[in-house]
Structures are given as structure tokens and as C-alpha cells.
């Protein structure tokens, strides 16, 4: 007679097809050409990146397209020291919110080629593009130190 069963796996699985929408599709196709695109809100004038076709603050459609710099400022960051599923990187590594020059919203991406202990708020970083060009955020392999003086806190304090 078998021993009492203690537990079982009950997976919850939802298989979606995500539709990026018009604005984000343009953004992703831009990445395949090594261009980072945002959209400026006609009301508050802020540049949203990635663009969503509407300003999340003002609720109005956004159409004006703005090409952004591939250089930006680390606003906040975190260092990952713990292994988890679906993670194929050597520990430790860092992820950061990056305020690209010309944008008013931040991009969350990897920081590499720099010891994690040297990563800091205000650090200037530059995108490193992947050799393969495709309409995906993976076209940016990671960000590395740009070799510029740190940005003053006042320049990014509204974007934390």
C-alpha cells in the first residue's frame, strides 16, 4: 500500500499572444535599426519611452516621435545575488533604471562590463548593441559605463 501523498504540482499556465500595439511596434522596429524612439505628449511635453500611443499622465494621444540618445543616467539600480529560474547570467549582476538623454521616463536594463560595486546613482551609461538586429529590447545587449562624469542629482531627481 502506498504511503500517503504529501503534495502535488498544480501548474497555472496562461499562454498569451501579446500584441505590442502601433506605438510600441514602431519602437521595436526602431531598435532593429539601432534607434531608440519615444513620443512627446502635446500637453505636458514629456517624452515617454517606450511610447504607448498615449500619455499616461495626461491621457491624450501622442504622435510626435522623438529619437533618443543611446546614452543616459542611472537613476536607481539593484544588484542581483540570488539565482532564480529562467535566469541565464553569472551572479552577481546589476539591473538599472536608465534615463536616456531626451527622455522623461526610464528604461530598465542590464549594466555590464563594470564591477557591480562601482555602479551608482547618477552614473552615465551607454547602450551596447547586439550584433543581431531584431525588433526586440534584446537588441540592446546591455549598458556599459559611458566614461563621462556623473550627472548631478538634480538632473534626474524627478525621475526616481
Amino acid at each position, binding site marked *: 500500500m*502506498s*504511503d*500517503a*501523498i504529501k*503534495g502535488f504540482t498544480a*501548474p497555472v499556465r496562461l499562454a498569451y499572444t501579446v500584441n505590442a500595439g502601433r506605438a510600441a*511596434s514602431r519602437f521595436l522596429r526602431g531598435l532593429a535599426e539601432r534607434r531608440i524612439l519615444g513620443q512627446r505628449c502635446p500637453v505636458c511635453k514629456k517624452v515617454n519611452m517606450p511610447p504607448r500611443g498615449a500619455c499616461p499622465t495626461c491621457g491624450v494621444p501622442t504622435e510626435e516621435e522623438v529619437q533618443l540618445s543611446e546614452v543616459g543616467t542611472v537613476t536607481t539600480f539593484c544588484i542581483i545575488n540570488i539565482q532564480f529560474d529562467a535566469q541565464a547570467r553569472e551572479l552577481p549582476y546589476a539591473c538599472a533604471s536608465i534615463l536616456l538623454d531626451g527622455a522623461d521616463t526610464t528604461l530598465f536594463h542590464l549594466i555590464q562590463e563594470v564591477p557591480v560595486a562601482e555602479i551608482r546613482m547618477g552614473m552615465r551609461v551607454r547602450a551596447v548593441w547586439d550584433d543581431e538586429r531584431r525588433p526586440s529590447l534584446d537588441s540592446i545587449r546591455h549598458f556599459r559605463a559611458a566614461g563621462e562624469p556623473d550627472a548631478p542629482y538634480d538632473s534626474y531627481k524627478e525621475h526616481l
Partner: protein
Amino acid sequence: MARDDENLTAPYVLEYKYRRSCGPVVGRFLAALKDGRLEGVRAADGRVIVPPTEYDEHGEPTGEPVALAPTGTVTAWSWVAAPRANHPLARPFAWALVKLDGADTALLHAVDAVEESRMKTGARVRARFAAADERVGHIRDLACFELLPGDAHE
């Protein structure tokens, strides 16, 4: 790839592989399924509840396991004409409440009736278990029920 003026799409799977603890009463029921047997549990008022619960609907703790026959009667059913990927059977089947002989409550499971016209409330069914070496102590160890010969409603 999509045309330049079409929206980009991509597959996206959200999955949580929960591991659930089942407790001693359901754990014993699942162990019996692994052994190819069906069990209920005796409630304080003498009824036999299957699948077994730790407490009855009045909040009274249940007692000893009760061995049950692999046969029962359909008390309600619903036809599935187009089974989905995670359904227990690949061909059309019925979800049914099956009151096992000796039980006082019904168990929800699949009936491999093949044709909807063969299903009826009151139909007699028999449990079909997965092969012994495939049973792991899961409700799917009970593969489905099948109609007893002579009871198919033509």
C-alpha cells in the same frame, strides 16, 4: 515577420508551477489512486464522502477511510465536444458527477462515452485507471470512467 505597418506580436507564457500540500486525508485518497483503488471517508453521521474531506459540511471531523467499488452511477453530466490541451481525454467526452457504489456524494470526473448520444443521467460507469507504472498519486491516476457494457444509451 509582420508587414511594416502591422503590429508586432509575440507569444508570452505566464506560468506558476505551484506545489500544493494536500493534507493527510486527500493524501491517503491519492495514495489509494496510485494503488488503483478508490476510497472515501466516513463522516460523523455515517455517510461516505468521496473525494474525502477532512471535515464534513457541518464542520464535524471525518473518520476512517472506506474502500469503494470502481463502479458508480452518473448523476449529472455535460458534454465536451472539443477537448482542450489539458483535458483528460483527447476525444469528445463528458464531465460527469459520478456517485460511486457505496458513496453518498458524487465525484466529478471524465466519462469516455465517445458519442454524446450514449450519455444519460443514471448511466452505470466503471473507473479506468492509468497503467500502474504511470500512476504517481494524482487525480489523473484515475484516467476516466467508461460506460458499462449494455448501459450505453443509444
